[in-house]
């Protein structure tokens, strides 16, 4: 059963070969068996999930079902779920039970999906290793004591270990794609504005975007079908028709123009990762794609611009955590000032404080132009680089991450950690969609390749990834010890 994709499970449910209750119990048993070690869930919704499964089975019986009805899905603990704890990986929200439902989880509920639990993550989605969670680090199922990537590390680990049929993630600078790469799964960050951010706890509002984390591109297409679409509750959510993302998966990629930035070829990539990427390019070429070199001179500096823009927006967004209306409040405050300061100093973890401090500094009087304005100008240049490149190519290919997974605790310097997002950040700055899917193994660890497409070209990215997955088997691999 754990080898079945979401698409296969969906068929099995509809053909009544299995019930949603059985399937949900199957995953709950796996969580029970494996998650003590992996720590990929913050909350497991046993009873709630089984009730949802019963309702799903009734829907299937009555013929009123969707492709996701009865499918157990794990939700990143950044999406507000009414009546169920939403912690965002932080002590600040350890006691927070959302009074409303996020649009994304609402859409899953409407589709009849079963919420099996809420996944672990870096605190407020700030991190690339999932080591910054108040609930402890998450393990990558591929190797003992290694990180799953971050910030959607719990979701990536859970899907890789088959503790859920699919999961959601959010991506501000690579938080869906990088953990997908490190855990050997498929992850898609849609175009900014494709998926509603209502009820998705804000980190950097001009960059954040939710998306699917699944075994295959086909599964991702099915999940995106549920997630995407206009929402009046999010003023940045684009009012544009949602295509059926599964409809063109089988298109040939003959004649597809793939751009490979010359700047990335020369970048600091682990040799084994570079080898996998070269192999992937060869495979895609043999499938009829045309490979072209493109120039993206400003993407290198994207990381710098990001580490001003994201902390600046975060410092503003996180000002709301003041101990007054919800969340943590320090004990026995002496006065209002003491309450604000101690609540925040005790409630936030180290990395979150570092980003709030960086952002506060960058936005403070006298430094605004030198840092924030400059970064927004660089952002424009990066966006122009893409615009130029998409005149000649359909998609742009890079590694997702410069390395495979690393040991928990191995990367101590914040800047070194930031560097793991060097290939994923430019797409966030430009607001473009990007996908990561498994493309090889280096020393028995998964390697991911990234494709970035033009605005609203998610279907194209899923098509290319799906076609690649018809030719290769990297996406079917299960880490050792996780078979039934």
């Amino acid at each position, binding site marked *: 059963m754990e080898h079945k994709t979401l698409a296969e499970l969906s068929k099995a449910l509809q053909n009544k070969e299995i019930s949603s209750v059985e399937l949900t119990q199957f995953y709950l048993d796996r969580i029970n068996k494996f998650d003590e070690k992996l720590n990929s869930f913050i909350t497991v919704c046993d009873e709630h999930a089984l009730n949802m499964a019963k309702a799903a089975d009734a829907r299937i019986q009555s013929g009123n079902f969707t492709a996701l009805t009865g499918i157990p899905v794990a939700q990143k603990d950044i999406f507000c779920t009414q009546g169920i704890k939403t912690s965002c990986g932080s002590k600040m929200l350890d006691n*927070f*039970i959302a*009074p*409303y439902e996020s649009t994304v989880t609402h859409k899953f509920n409407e589709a009849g999906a079963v919420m099996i639990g809420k996944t672990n993550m870096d605190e407020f989605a700030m991190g690339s290793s999932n080591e910054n969670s108040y609930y402890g680090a998450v393990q990558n199922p591929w190797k003992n004591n290694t990180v799953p990537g971050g910030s959607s590390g719990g979701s990536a680990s859970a899907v890789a270990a088959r503790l859920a049929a699919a999961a959601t993630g959010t991506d501000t600078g690579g938080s869906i794609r990088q953990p997908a790469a490190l855990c050997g799964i498929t992850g898609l960050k849609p*175009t*900014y*504005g494709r998926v509603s951010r209502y009820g998705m706890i804000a980190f950097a509002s*001009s*960059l954040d975007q939710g998306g699917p984390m699944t075994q295959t591109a086909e599964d991702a297409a099915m999940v995106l079908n549920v997630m995407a679409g206009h929402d*009046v509750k999010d*003023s940045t959510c684009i009012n544009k028709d949602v295509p059926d993302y599964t409809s063109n998966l089988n298109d040939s990629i003959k004649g597809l123009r793939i751009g490979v930035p010359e700047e990335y070829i020369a970048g600091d990539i682990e040799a084994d990762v570079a080898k996998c990427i070269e192999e992937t390019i060869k495979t895609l070429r043999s499938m009829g794609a045309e490979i072209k070199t493109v120039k993206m001179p400003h993407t*290198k*500096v994207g*990381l*710098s*611009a990001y*580490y*001003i823009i994201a902390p600046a927006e975060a*410092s503003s967004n996180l*000002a709301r955590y*003041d*101990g*007054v*209306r*919800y*969340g*943590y*409040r320090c004990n026995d*405050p*002496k*006065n*209002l000032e*003491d*309450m604000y*300061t101690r609540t*925040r*100093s005790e409630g936030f973890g180290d990395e979150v*404080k*570092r980003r*709030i*401090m960086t952002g*506060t*500094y960058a936005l*403070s009087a006298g430094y605004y132009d030198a840092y924030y304005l*400059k*970064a*927004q*100008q*660089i*952002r*424009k*240049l990066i*966006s122009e680089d893409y615009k130029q490149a998409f005149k000649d190519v359909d998609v742009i290919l890079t590694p997702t991450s410069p390395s495979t997974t690393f040991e928990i605790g191995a990367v101590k*310097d*914040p*800047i070194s950690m930031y560097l793991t997002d060097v290939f994923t950040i430019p797409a966030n*700055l*430009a*607001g473009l969609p990007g996908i990561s899917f498994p493309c090889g193994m280096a020393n028995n660890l998964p390697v991911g390749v990234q494709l970035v497409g033009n*605005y609203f070209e998610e279907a194209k990215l899923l098509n290319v990834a799906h076609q690649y997955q018809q030719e290769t088997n990297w996406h079917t691999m299960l880490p050792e010890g996780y078979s039934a």
Partner: protein
Amino acid sequence: MQIDANEIQKIGKLAKLSFDKKEQEKYAENLNKILDFVEQMNQYDTTGITPMAHPLDIAQPMRKDAVTEPDVREDMLKLAPEANAGLYVVPQVIEDKES
């Protein structure tokens, strides 16, 4: 620009975060490293480039000024660390004259 422990205290005041002496030094070192790193932005001439505030060049949509949300006052107040008579309770802000 070098940030020292004093500067960290000042920024912390703006961000409502406090740090002990050891933390001040650590954050000063971290912030200096980050600021040194982002220094590479200055290798690029951005004269005349319009700053990009939104990933898609679109205008902010407007909606009718109508009530669309239900009253959830009680649900919201239930989440508060301390609430009383429909109000959020915080430590006293204005001091008594006598004290």
